[in-house]
């Protein structure tokens, strides 16, 4: 039984790797596109999250809406952390300043490479 589970896991892993294409890799995170599943994956190191395009848009909105300036003012953001809820509260991430900056870079560059953003510098949302 265990043998079968390991086999299935390896099969899925091989399938995952063969059908995934890296869109953009930042320092901490990687954005993948799955052509066969017509969806996206974001590798957050701790876990990989599957996302539809709408969910990817929601991620972009949430990440770009984070006021990063507040991280440099102890009155506005005392501990320098952000809580990020994704995919209808299915996932929860706690990010530090560097991770937020890196995630902002991932979504900005990722959308440019996906062909739906014209420039790397995102407009205010």
């Amino acid at each position, binding site marked *: 039984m265990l043998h079968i589970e390991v086999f299935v896991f390896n099969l899925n892993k091989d399938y995952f790797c063969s059908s995934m*294409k890296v869109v953009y890799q930042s320092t901490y995170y990687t954005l993948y596109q799955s052509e066969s599943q017509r969806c996206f994956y974001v590798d957050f190191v701790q876990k990989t999250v599957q996302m539809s395009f709408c969910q990817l*848009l929601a991620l972009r909105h949430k990440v770009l809406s984070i006021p990063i300036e507040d991280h440099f003012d102890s009155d506005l953001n005392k501990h320098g952390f952000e809580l990020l809820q994704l995919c209808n509260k299915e996932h929860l991430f706690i990010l530090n300043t560097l991770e937020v900056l890196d995630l902002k870079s991932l979504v900005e560059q990722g959308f440019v490479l996906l*062909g*739906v953003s014209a420039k790397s510098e*995102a407009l*205010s949302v």
Partner: protein
Amino acid sequence: MKDIARQAMSIKVESMDLLNSQIKMEAHASATYLAMASWCEQNGFFTSAKFFFKQAEEEREHMMKIFNFLIDAGGSPYSPEVTNINHDYSSIVDVFEHTLDHEIAVTKSIHNIVMKARELGDLTTERFLDWFVMEQVEEENTIRDILDMIAVTGTEGVGLQVIDDHVGNWIN
């Protein structure tokens, strides 16, 4: 690489961001006109109040037009948060002067999105906004005409009552 993202959305994300800002602006305009209607009711300008109730509805329709366009284009429209609505005006002239300023700000914002869409090569958004460009000409003209009527009538004596009655000419 397949264009899965492009297959899901017909416009550029930058256009989507700007249209979401416009949704917010139209919602703010709708709430502002509602505040003006309230002021008019409280100060005895009942016809002007009706005018502003109608303007508030129109602005909401504009907002919904953009909201539905974003849905049709595969984007994500965001329900706007409306704050900082002014309820204080010194006179009925002040109300209409603020209205014209507001309409000019909306026109500028629409023009800015058209120019950005053109810069991005986003023809879908640019063509969608054609209707708004012409609508703003009409909106500004209406308020200019009312301010001209106020200038001709004057605010002395029964002037204010006459002004309020005449505003009814611009309620379709």
